[in-house]
C-alpha cells in the first residue's frame, strides 16, 4: 500500500516540487549570504559582533512568524503585492531563502574565521593576488560552506509555515501548483489519511538523507582527487 502511494504520479510530482522549490531557495540564499559571511568572516568593523549575534538569533526564527510577515507583504494590498509572488513556487522559494540565510551566514563566517591566518599568507607568498588568496580561504572553509548548504536545504524542505502561508497548498491538475511535501502531510493528517502522510514523511526523510550523503561524497571526491 505504502509503495503504491509513494510511486503514485501525484506524490512524485509533489516530491519533485519540494526539491525544486527548496533547491532554488538554497541557491538564492547561498548567492547573497556567502558575500555577507565573507564580510563578517574576513573583516573587523564596529558592530560586527552585534551583526553576528543577529544572524545567530535569526537561525531560530519561527517559520510561521516569517511566513506571516511575508504573507502581509506579498498579499495583493501589501507593499510587495505588485510582484504577484503570493501562491507561487517562486514566492515559497524566496520566503525559504530568507529563512535559511542566517544558517548560511553563521556557518560560513564561522568557517572562514576558523581557517588559519597562515593560509592567506601562504596563498600570498605563492603569488596569489588578494582576491585569489580570499578564494583560497573560502576553499579551505568549503566544509563549512557545504555543511551550511545541506543544513539550509534540509531546513527549507522540512519547513511548513512559509510553504503553507505563501504557497497555499494549491494542487489542481494541469494548474499552477504549490503543494509541497510538508503542506501535503499537514493536509492529509488533518483529513485523517495517516498512511499517505506517513508515505510523504518517508519520502521527505529519504530526500534529506540522500542529499546529505551525495553532498559529502562529492565533497570528499573533489578534495582528494587530482
Amino acid at each position: 500500500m505504502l509503495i503504491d502511494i509513494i510511486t503514485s504520479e501525484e506524490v512524485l510530482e509533489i516530491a519533485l516540487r519540494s526539491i525544486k522549490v527548496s533547491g532554488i531557495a538554497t541557491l538564492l540564499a547561498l548567492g547573497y549570504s556567502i558575500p555577507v559571511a565573507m564580510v563578517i568572516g574576513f573583516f573587523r568593523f564596529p558592530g560586527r559582533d552585534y551583526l553576528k549575534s543577529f544572524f545567530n538569533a535569526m537561525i531560530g526564527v519561527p517559520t510561521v512568524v516569517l511566513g506571516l510577515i511575508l504573507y502581509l507583504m506579498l498579499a495583493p494590498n501589501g507593499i510587495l503585492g505588485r510582484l504577484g509572488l503570493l501562491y507561487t513556487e517562486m514566492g515559497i522559494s524566496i520566503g525559504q531563502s530568507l529563512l535559511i540565510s542566517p544558517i548560511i551566514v553563521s556557518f560560513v563566517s564561522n568557517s572562514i574565521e576558523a581557517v588559519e591566518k597562515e593560509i592567506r599568507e601562504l596563498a600570498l607568498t605563492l603569488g596569489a593576488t588578494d582576491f585569489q588568496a580570499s578564494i583560497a580561504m573560502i576553499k579551505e572553509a568549503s566544509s563549512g560552506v557545504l555543511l551550511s548548504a545541506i543544513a539550509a536545504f534540509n531546513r527549507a524542505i522540512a519547513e511548513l509555515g512559509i510553504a503553507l502561508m505563501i504557497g497555499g497548498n494549491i494542487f489542481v491538475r494541469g494548474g499552477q501548483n504549490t503543494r509541497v511535501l510538508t503542506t501535503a502531510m499537514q493536509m492529509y493528517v488533518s483529513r485523517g489519511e495517516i498512511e499517505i502522510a506517513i508515505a510523504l514523511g518517508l519520502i521527505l526523510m529519504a530526500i534529506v538523507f540522500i542529499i546529505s550523503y551525495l553532498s559529502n561524497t562529492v565533497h570528499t571526491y573533489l578534495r582528494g582527487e587530482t
Partner: protein
Amino acid sequence: MIVRLERIWKYFGSFPALKDINLNIREGEILSIIGSSGAGKTTLLRIISMLDMPDKGVYYLKGKENTYSIEQRRSVTMVFQKPVIFNTSVYKNIEFGLKVRGVENGEARKRVKEALSMVGLEDYAKRRAKTLSGGEQQRVAIARAVAVKPELIVLDEPTANLDPQNIKVIEDIIKKMAEQGITVVFSTHNMFQAKRIAERVVHLHEGKIVEVGNVKKIFENPSSEVTKKFLSGELFY
C-alpha cells in the same frame, strides 16, 4: 644583488623588532640567518619575502625600489617553520602557485612532477597532504615553493622539530635549489646546519645585524663579541 635592504626598521607597537638593518643578498647564494630566539629572524624573513613591509628604510629588489607589485611578489616565495598545507591532495597543493599564475595544465603537470621528484615524493601526488608526516609536509611545502620557479626562496627554520633523517633530506634539497640557480635564505637555530650548507651567514641579535660574513670567517674568526659568545654557547638560542 637580488635584494638590498637599506636602514630597515620594523616596530611591533613601540618595540623595535628590527633596528637599522642593512643587508645585501647575492644572486644564487645560500645565506643563513642565525640568532637566538627573539632576535628578529622571522621578522626579517617576512620582510624579505614581502609578507610584511618595513616601517622605515628601503627595500631594493634586483636594483629597483620594491613597490610590492604582484610581479615583484611573485619572484620571492617563503616556506614557513610550521608547514602550512592546503586541505587537499599533494598535487593540488603544489599546483596552487602555478594556477594563480595562469600556467596551463600540461606545463603545470610537468612542473608539479619535477618538484615532487626534487623532494623525493614522486608517488605522493594523490595523497591527502594533511595525512603526511611533519617531514613529508615540509617537503611538500618546499616542492610547492620550488614549482613556481622563484628567484629567491626564503625558509624560516625549515628543519625545526624534524628528525635527523628528514633534516638531512631537507638540507640536500636546499643544496639542489641553489644548484638550480635559486637564491636561498634560511634561518636556523642550528649553527652546525648553517656551517654545513650556507655560503654566508648573518648573525642577528636583538633586532640588529651584529656580523655578516662567509661561513669560514664567522665560525673561525668572528669579529663581534656577541657572535663569539653566541658561537661558544654563552647566549641562549
